């Protein structure tokens, strides 16, 4: 009989091998799916994993990989801190929206003035907006003990309604012919977040994601807060004895994840997306939860997971183009990839042992 035996610490070897194994298995399972739909499986897999990196126009796609992964990584890094301490902020989508709205509102308040400080102010407003939105579940939890999963999730829907109101009301472009949606910040240089180095896809959001990942790494390794986070997650009772104030920790973790989600929203609205519209948000806040776990809540893992997920998005579109695969097939394929990645993780945390069955 096969049994699992927990490893004292995760195996470095398997931690490195399982993602590769998972991708290979997904290729096989996905290939079967595509073949069943009458599409050439080899070409589909190449389109998804190879073409964006090394195929035609790979320069463009590699840059887009960063653009797509940027917000995912930025949000996921913030969430991972809370998740490690068993603090369940699953409303990053809402914090992302509010951050974008606050940042864009500050920028548009100056329109059409041109000052160097407009964009920095927007960045601060974006982070504050996300932070404030995350403080609602944090306060309710600390004062009343209200469950943060539900409150943060509900606040996503509230944020979506605020976004719709903003797009139709206060932030509506006065020159927009009566259509909803704010002015396009890409066309307002003082408030825009352009590509910093041409054709690399690197904008301030990508830089922020990289910085956040590095800081999170240092925080977890060196800082007392990182220690507290790890202890609170692994042994809540021990954490109390170690002098961790759970309320304090809760506020800090929610605040960090909210601020980073807000920043992601701000960089997105002032950069690649351009405007607040009724459907500005596209689910990054939820996808980032998957990214955080795929990356095993580790900053480096999160960067890699974000890039991998971005690859399947971009490659998936290429497969739609060249093979006429429906987007649903790509969604199912992504689902499979996640299952394999998550499922095979068992190998790095556990040993498989053959045991005699006890009679």
């Amino acid at each position, binding site marked *: 009989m096969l049994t699992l035996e927990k490893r004292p610490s995760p195996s470095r070897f398997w931690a490195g091998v399982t993602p590769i194994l998972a991708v290979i298995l997904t290729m096989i399972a996905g290939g079967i799916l595509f073949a069943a739909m009458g599409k050439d499986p080899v070409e589909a897999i190449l389109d998804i994993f190879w073409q964006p990196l090394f195929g035609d126009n790979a320069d463009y796609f590699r840059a887009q990989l960063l653009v797509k992964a940027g917000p995912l990584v930025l949000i996921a890094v913030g969430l991972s801190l809370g998740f490690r301490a068993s603090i369940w902020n699953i409303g990053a989508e809402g914090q992302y929206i509010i951050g974008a709205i606050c940042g864009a509102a500050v920028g548009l308040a100056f329109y059409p003035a041109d000052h160097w400080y407009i964009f920095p102010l927007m960045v601060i407003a974006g982070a504050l907006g996300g932070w404030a939105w995350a403080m609602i579940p944090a306060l309710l939890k600390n004062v009343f003990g209200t469950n943060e999963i539900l409150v943060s999730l509900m606040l996503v829907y509230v944020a979506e309604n605020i976004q719709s109101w903003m797009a139709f009301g206060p932030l509506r472009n006065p020159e927009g012919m009566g259509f909803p949606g704010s002015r396009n910040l890409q066309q307002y240089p003082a408030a825009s977040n352009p590509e910093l180095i041409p054709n690399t896809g690197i904008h301030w959001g990508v830089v922020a994601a990289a910085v956040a990942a590095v800081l999170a790494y240092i925080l977890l390794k060196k800082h007392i807060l990182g220690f507290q986070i790890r202890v609170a997650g692994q042994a809540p009772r021990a954490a109390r004895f170690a002098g961790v104030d759970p309320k304090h920790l809760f506020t800090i973790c929610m605040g960090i994840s909210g601020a980073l989600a807000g920043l992601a929203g701000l960089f997105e609205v002032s950069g690649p997306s351009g405007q607040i519209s009724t*459907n500005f948000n596209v689910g990054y806040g939820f996808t980032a939860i998957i990214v955080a776990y795929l990356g095993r809540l580790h900053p480096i893992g999160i960067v890699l997971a974000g890039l991998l997920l971005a690859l399947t998005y971009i490659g998936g579109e290429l497969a739609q183009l060249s093979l006429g695969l429906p987007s649903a097939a790509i969604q199912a394929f992504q689902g499979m990839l996640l299952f394999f990645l998550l499922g095979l993780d068992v190998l790095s945390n556990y040993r498989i042992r053959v045991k005699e069955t006890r009679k």
Partner: protein
Amino acid sequence: MKRREFLAATAATGTVLATGLAGKAMAAEPLKVGFIYLGVPGDGGWTYQHDLARQAMEKHFDGKVVTNVIQNVPEGADAERSITQLALAGNKLIFTTSFGYMDPTINVAKKFPKVKFEHATGYKRADNVSTYDARFYEGRAVIGTIAGRMTKTNKIGYIGTFPIPEVVQGINSAYIHAKKVNPDVEMKVIWVSTWFDPAKEADAAQAMIDAGVDVIMQHTDSTAAMAKAQAAGVYAFGQSSDMIQYAPKPRISSIIDNWAPYYIQRAQDMLDGKWASQGVWMGIGTGVVEIGEITDAVPPEVKAEALALKDKIASGAYHPFTGPLNKQDGSVWLAAGETPKDDMLSGLNFYVEGIQGDLPK
């Protein structure tokens, strides 16, 4: 596709033969036309109709035109990337089929001056960007007339999505023409704040029915409201697609978005080398706005009246917004005989006199 060329070359081994084939392929190179969709063809509404038109275009040109599609593209950053992908993949004509693709389309068009772009429902154009839209309000005038005649409770309903000009035009047009044939008519508008949520659409229809509405018009795309109308024995109209499966009752007619004539025309322009940037707003006359079959549930004289109105609009003899018309607040919008300019109409943001309730702001 580098890989394919490589495979072809090795398979042929005789290099002369290989180059010969390649040369021939170049000569008969079909026109590549790209599409990006906000939803999936399975939505049965907006995207479905664009996809039907795409297929009709492909069929019409019988191999001279091939199409590429990317579905489910959110508006914003993803749209810009997807449109670029279409351009990079060698599509020479690209249709971007949602309002939110406007700025991304313009951005990509700057980078690909040789590629032609067609943006649906927007207002920004460039040398290589055209816009196209449909005068759905013309269709609303026809079904508004039918609705005004068919209601017994004198309450007709309109399921609105978002208060954008297109929807406001539709509500006004339907109301004006219902009122014209039935002065006692009252219009109830429910805003569902979504383009797509079948369950909510069904609830909205039920709420109207319970409030005494017996003819339902909708701007949302699903047949959810239709099913409720059937259960309650009231009338409704197909939207976007024909929804003929609900004929002859509750579906007594429909407004169909038929983009095929336009897509075929523009592809033909490309093949002829005659494509030029333009902004078109097409109505019943062009076949882009179609009125689905009016069923036998409608008395013959009402049907005849509706068809006569349709013909008058199609020929250009009648504009659905012809004065005298007042705004909701009673102030004059159009003097007797006056019709609005398209610029004014495309930014319409108020109700006409007689409609109850506030237009959400």
